[in-house]
């Protein structure tokens, strides 16, 4: 299907099945588990950014009151290099193991060094102080430019760059160089009337989920392991635990607890293997959770990046060429999101001549990890600010410039593949027709300068394996067991789909997430894939139930199944052979055991055909030119959402993306001192937006159905965080005439530029 269709339940705002538990405090999140005999585990972390561990003595700690187990990297099995798909990223499992606990060297402030398990949290913390570690501090590498230089200390002297023929065989902090290239770049720039080339830097930032990482493990006498934790994909956690602890995957059961936010960050293990090892040592359950400082220090933040971006266009605005170099800070181990950054940087633009070079660089920061559209916001900040400059040079509005260059079905994506049916043009037009775009910005007055900015964004979207089980209950209700972790309403979306197929109400469905022993393999809730893949599985699973219901009705009526008509709009089941005969889903369900036994269905899919997503954002800001403070006055996000299966949670994704993007644009950053120590590892000084920092948010759901999905689903969760950085930057320019090329565009940065510009007649801070 390609055209938009009206559905009965799909597209309605049904109450989420897990909602009641979440407003009453009954929902169990990762660290809400309490088991008999449970121990509390804590981790000792490096006070240095880069140091050799000269000695590590656990003997005193082991003797501390209440301590039942201690461990170091020596307690983790030595495992071979092996690449592991983590949903939105790929990591080498050997690196993962060394990230979970340092071996030989600590590579970032907060790198785990040892762990203890004790009978109380306080006793475990006291035992950490009894661990004796001698460090030999090494020079830290914090700046990406320095990391690439010949003078920089090497994090791993054995690491050589993987390149494209430009490898020199020497050890390097540059782990990889790759290139995406099409057309003739020189010719393209020669045809351009205007060329703009700029350099951008994004500071490291964090996903900022409110629930800290957690894990509880219980080893059973036969060697089986049960892990309770909150993650974006418990099957992935099971694989990682098995690999890192060298256990057969079938010996590990992971029970998904409710997850308190992930945004990409909860797709890999940090504590789980430590809890397993210490449970193995004690035969007792071990519960661990990070405090907020640990979350910021030692889990995978979004990589910082240096991006050089050059684009050219003709006077009429037609883009002729684009080139970019992306240098991403992978952190202590290789594997940043530079690939996705390179794949998305020119995503919304039709280009024949382009080249993108990506570099993956290690330095002494925590190993970076996926954060909502990994790499794409960094990249779009560069390209969408450059495009804003080109539009101004051409005298075109930012939206018209983008419309002129917008990609559509059949165009080749900047990184290669041909695009299927997409909705960028419809989304740009929706933004153009929006109330926001058609309302004049209130004029600036005095020290308060107002401006409007626009930016667009692209994200691939994902698909993959997913499983759903449906069990029909005797009262006509359905138990829905899915394998996708539910971060923001996935169960509600699946229930809408199941109800749609069966002509029943979402309230008839009891929805839950199955553990790894209960439901079939399902890949992570990441890459904007969950509703696509689990939605496909739910659709097929419900269709099978429907077929079975038809068979049972036929049996009840002693007729052929062909005579049974099941109307999914009304839910009525009728008999073509006898107009008097009528049944409902509930009536058939009640008779299940008399008509052939339980009615159940399980479907696993390996979905493909994720429809790419595009977003266009408009933002109004007000700049106080005496302080450099930026307030967001109005914000509109238009996005092609395919089909909004559950509009509340689609809007919710768009609104959340705006909020995270605004925080990223204006204030969020990892603030390192010269020794490479993270100075703001708290929610006081890592400044995420509060309720007072945002206005009401306007969302426009453009529905261009994905032809590769029965309900036209496109992922919606990630592309919404791609445009805000550039949109805010372009708005600040519109307000002040000042362009900022670094995020965060925080008050000291903007004030410093305002003071240089002479924009405000300001009293000098003279001595």
């Amino acid at each position, binding site marked *: 299907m390609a055209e938009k269709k009206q559905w009965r339940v799909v597209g309605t*705002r049904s*109450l*989420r099945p*897990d*909602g*009641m538990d*979440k*407003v*009453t*405090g*009954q*929902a*169990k*999140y990762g*660290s*809400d588990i*309490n088991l008999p005999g449970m121990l509390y585990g804590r981790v000792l972390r490096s006070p240095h950014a880069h140091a050799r561990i000269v000695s590590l003595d656990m003997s005193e700690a082991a003797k501390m009151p209440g301590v039942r187990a201690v461990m170091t990297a020596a307690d983790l099995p030595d495992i071979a290099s092996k690449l592991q798909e983590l949903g939105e990223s790929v990591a080498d499992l050997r690196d993962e193991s060394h990230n979970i606990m340092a071996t030989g060297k600590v590579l970032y402030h907060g790198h785990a060094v040892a762990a203890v398990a004790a009978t109380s*949290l*306080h006793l475990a913390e006291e035992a950490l102080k009894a661990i004796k570690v001698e460090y030999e501090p090494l020079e830290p590498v914090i700046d990406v430019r320095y990391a690439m230089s010949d003078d920089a200390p090497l994090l791993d002297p054995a690491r050589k760059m993987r390149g494209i023929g430009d490898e020199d065989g020497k050890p390097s902090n540059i782990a990889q160089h790759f290139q995406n290239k099409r057309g003739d770049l020189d010719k393209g720039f020669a045809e351009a009337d205007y060329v703009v080339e700029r350099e951008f830097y994004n500071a490291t930032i964090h*996903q*900022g*989920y*409110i*629930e*800290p990482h957690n894990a509880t493990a219980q080893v059973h006498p036969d060697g089986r392991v049960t892990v309770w934790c909150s993650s974006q994909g418990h099957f992935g956690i099971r694989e990682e635990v098995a690999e890192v602890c060298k256990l057969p995957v079938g010996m590990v059961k992971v029970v998904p607890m*409710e*997850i*308190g*936010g*992930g*945004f990409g960050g909860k797709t890999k293990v940090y504590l789980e293997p430590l809890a397993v090892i210490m449970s193995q040592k004690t035969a007792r359950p071990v519960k661990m*959770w990070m*405090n*907020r400082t640990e979350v910021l220090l030692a889990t995978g933040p979004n990589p910082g990046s240096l991006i050089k971006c050059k684009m050219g266009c003709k006077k009429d605005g037609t883009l002729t060429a684009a080139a970019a170099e992306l240098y991403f800070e992978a952190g202590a181990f290789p594997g940043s999101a530079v690939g996705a950054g390179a794949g998305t940087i020119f995503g919304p633009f039709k280009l024949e001549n382009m080249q993108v070079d990506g570099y993956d660089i290690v330095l002494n920061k925590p190993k970076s990890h996926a954060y909502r559209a990994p790499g794409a916001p960094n990249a779009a900040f560069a390209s969408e600010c450059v495009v804003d400059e080109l539009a101004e040079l051409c005298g075109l509005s930012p939206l018209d410039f983008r419309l002129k260059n917008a990609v559509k079905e059949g165009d080749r994506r900047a990184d290669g593949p041909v695009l299927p049916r997409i909705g960028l043009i419809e989304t740009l037009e929706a933004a153009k027709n929006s109330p926001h775009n058609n309302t004049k910005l209130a004029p600036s007055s005095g020290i308060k300068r107002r401006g409007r900015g626009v930016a667009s964004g692209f994200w691939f979207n994902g698909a993959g394996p997913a499983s759903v089980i449906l069990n029909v209950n005797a009262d006509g209700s359905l138990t829905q067991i899915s394998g996708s972790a539910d*971060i*923001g*309403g996935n169960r509600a979306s699946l229930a809408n789909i199941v109800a749609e197929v069966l002509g029943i109400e979402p309230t008839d469905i009891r929805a839950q997430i199955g553990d790894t022993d209960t439901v079939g393999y399902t890949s992570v809730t990441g890459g904007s894939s969950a509703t696509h893949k689990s939605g496909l599985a739910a659709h097929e699973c419900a269709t099978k139930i429907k077929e079975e219901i038809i068979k049972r009705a036929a049996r009840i009526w002693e007729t052929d199944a062909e005579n049974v008509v099941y109307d999914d709009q009304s839910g009525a089941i009728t008999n073509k052979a006898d107009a008097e005969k009528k049944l409902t889903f509930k009536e058939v369900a009640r008779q299940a055991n008399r008509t052939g036994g339980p009615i159940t269905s399980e479907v696993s899919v390996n979905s493909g055909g994720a429809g790419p997503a595009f977003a266009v954002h408009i933002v109004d800001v007000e700049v106080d030119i005496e302080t450099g403070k930026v307030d967001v006055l109005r914000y509109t996000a238009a996005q092609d959402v395919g089909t909004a299966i559950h509009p*509340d*949670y689609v*809007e*919710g*994704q768009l*609104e*959340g*993306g*705006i*909020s*995270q993007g605004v925080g990223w644009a204006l204030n969020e950053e990892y603030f390192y001192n010269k020794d490479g120590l993270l100075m703001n590892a*708290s*929610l*006081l000084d890592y400044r*995420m*937006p*509060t*309720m*007072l920092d*945002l206005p*009401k*948010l306007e969302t426009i759901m453009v529905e261009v159905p994905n032809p590769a999905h029965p309900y036209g689903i496109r992922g919606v969760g990630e592309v919404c965080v791609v445009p805000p950085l550039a949109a805010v930057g372009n708005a600040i320019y519109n307000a002040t005439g000042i362009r900022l090329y670094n995020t965060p565009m925080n008050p000291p940065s903007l004030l410093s530029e305002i003071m240089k510009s002479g924009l405000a007649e300001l009293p000098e801070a003279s001595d």
Partner: protein
Amino acid sequence: MAKQIVQITVNGEPTDVLVEPRDSLLETLRENLEMTGTKEGCNNGNCGACSVMFDGRLVNSCLVLAVEADGKEVTTVEGLATSEGLHPVQQAFLDKAAFQCGVCTPGFLIATKALLEKHPNPSEHDVRYYLSGNLCRCTGYHKILEAVNAAAESMREGA
């Protein structure tokens, strides 16, 4: 210092609990009493996830010691609903889809109840100011604002 027994009235139920002076009210609720509806987000008073009512006043339970709660009354998210049904604030958050992951929700519910009992008809700025100590990373606060307004209306009608 030896552990001591304190009596805390939690959601109307006087409860004896053995605590150390260094145990916070949050730890005591979650680990000793296994009332895990109250969440830990930062354990430093910066996120509001652990909000509870403490003798009628909105506080972060991570910044109260359990020994200070001896003889005091505490209301947690588990104490909002009654046998009659959900509190209007809970109903509004559910109806307006004002949460995604839901981990900040218990804190928001308690803080919203405290706000609306003090200011039955708050302005948008009142709401944003009063709830600025509760961080939500999923929603961008838009649907939370709508839920607070809906709850305010419902509570005014019920009053």
